[in-house]
């Protein structure tokens, strides 16, 4: 078990009213449990605003959760100072949606790639080792060695996303969180990146948490899919089961929209209460009931 998410909750408060006298509460992540095993590939799908990215940020502790715990390699990363997390953070990296804003425009590619090395305390390595490691990653993502002196603006969207992936891989992480990593790319580049990700997973024995609203892309990469709606995981099953035998009305709506381009109003009737839990419906097909 690489990552175990237990009862994670996160609410955001919003001030409403003319003088901000009232506070309204949005439950962004509501009692989420999820287990990711080493080498497993989980797709997290749902519409925008359903809490996918918030969950990813909590896993990396870029955000603090309100309650619950997250065990990464057996260590609870929701507790303790962030200095203690440095080791765990090395092992989990994130690739962001928009390669135009996730790379610092004033950094050269070399700066971008080297930055990760400077963060890990006590794990210093020589410049030549770092170089070697960077070139190795470049080779893995099909980038040329001679780009080190260049700046992000000189690259196309697909190339930038490769650089972002290279940056996340350079420290040899175990878990890679890909937040809509291919959504902003056009279909041909999308295919290249999807193929690249499949190849990298085999080569480095990586574990992916792949976040997307596009079920078709998730199907190509992931063996397992978790469907999220309004802060809760409503269905969790193997990719085949989700596509062939969706159980939750929201999953059905999502499938109709992404495969047949039809809008079905399945989510209109969905109501949640606090007692609902993911129940095994057989063959490891979990449904929120």
């Amino acid at each position: 078990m690489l990552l175990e998410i237990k009862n994670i909750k996160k609410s955001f408060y919003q001030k409403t009213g003319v003088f901000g006298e009232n506070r309204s509460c949005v439950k962004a992540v509501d009692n989420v449990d999820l287990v990711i095993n080493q080498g497993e590939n989980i797709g997290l799908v749902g519409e925008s605003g359903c809490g996918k990215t918030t969950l990813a940020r909590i896993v990396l502790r870029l955000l603090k959760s309100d309650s619950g715990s997250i065990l990464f390699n057996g260590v609870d990363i929701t507790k303790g100072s962030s200095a203690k997390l440095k080791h765990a953070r090395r092992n989990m990296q994130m690739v962001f949606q928009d390669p135009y804003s996730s790379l610092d425009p004033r950094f050269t590619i070399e700066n971008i790639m080297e930055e990760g090395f400077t963060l890990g305390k006590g794990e210093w390595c020589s410049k030549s080792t770092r170089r070697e490691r960077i070139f190795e990653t470049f080779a893995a993502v099909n980038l040329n060695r001679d780009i080190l002196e260049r700046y992000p603006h000189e690259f196309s969207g697909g190339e930038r996303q490769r650089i972002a992936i290279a940056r996340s891989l350079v420290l040899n992480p175990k878990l890679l969180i890909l937040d809509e990593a291919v959504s902003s790319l056009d279909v041909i580049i999308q295919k290249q990146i999807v193929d690249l990700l499949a190849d990298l997973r085999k080569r480095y024995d990586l574990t992916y948490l792949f976040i997307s609203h596009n079920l078709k892309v998730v199907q190509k990469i992931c063996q397992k899919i978790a469907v999220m709606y309004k802060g809760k995981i409503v269905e969790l099953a193997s990719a085949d089961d989700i596509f062939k035998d969706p159980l939750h009305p929201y999953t059905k709506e999502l499938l109709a929209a992404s495969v047949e381009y039809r809008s079905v109003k399945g989510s209109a009737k969905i109501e949640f209460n606090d007692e609902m839990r993911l129940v095994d419906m057989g063959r490891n097909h979990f449904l929120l009931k």
Partner: protein
Amino acid sequence: MVPKIIKIQNLIVSVKQGEQSKNIVDKVSLSIAENSIVGLVGGSGSGKTTIGLSIIRLLAAALKIDGGEILFEGYNLLTYSGSKMREIRGKKIGMVFQEPLYAFNPVFRVGEQINEVLRFHTRLDVNKRKAKVLELIDMVGLPYPDKIYENYPHQLSGGMRQRAMIAQAIATEPKLLIADEPTSNLDVTVQAKIIELFQDLNKKLNLSILLITHDLGVVSHLCDSIAVMTNGKIVETGKTDEVMRSPKDKYTEALLSCS
């Protein structure tokens, strides 16, 4: 022979790079039959958007139309003066831009911006205009038109903004709607609704639509015919199901295998 709403012939658009100039749209011919939905497909940088912007003559200053003609209702749009073009643009040809957040002016209310189109292009009085705007907002499937009218663009979600922009584009009941990647930034569930809205408008208002996108899935569900573009050239055109079933060009094949 079905009458054509717009006919583009040998259009050349070039961009100047230092001393040289490069054709980013290279002798493109494309026509759209009345009442039909045509998909213009291609990778990013293939020149799709440039064609859309050429039709309404809103090209960036660096781009120059070097040749060809765009016939709309029998007249060449490229010979029109600026003021004459303004009468066509927004009235007879509507445009839905790619990024709805930047297409709206952030300091004006959404309703006022839709209203502005009517103020410019029609002789309706204040009350009728407002009623019409509310009707339009309702027509594109947005809830509580009164409230949306008073909202600023940033208060709407991506899908809602997209719908508001469609409302703005169809306000004057144009003959042709150019939709540039109208669903690319949206959730699949919202995307499905927008596609249904387009089908609906096509039937109700007899609206012809030029849909610019890189998503062949959307095209196959919405468009009657399709034109595939790469490197500034149209490499294949035809009926959607024929092209999807037996693509003749290598690039089309590659595109199909990716989606």
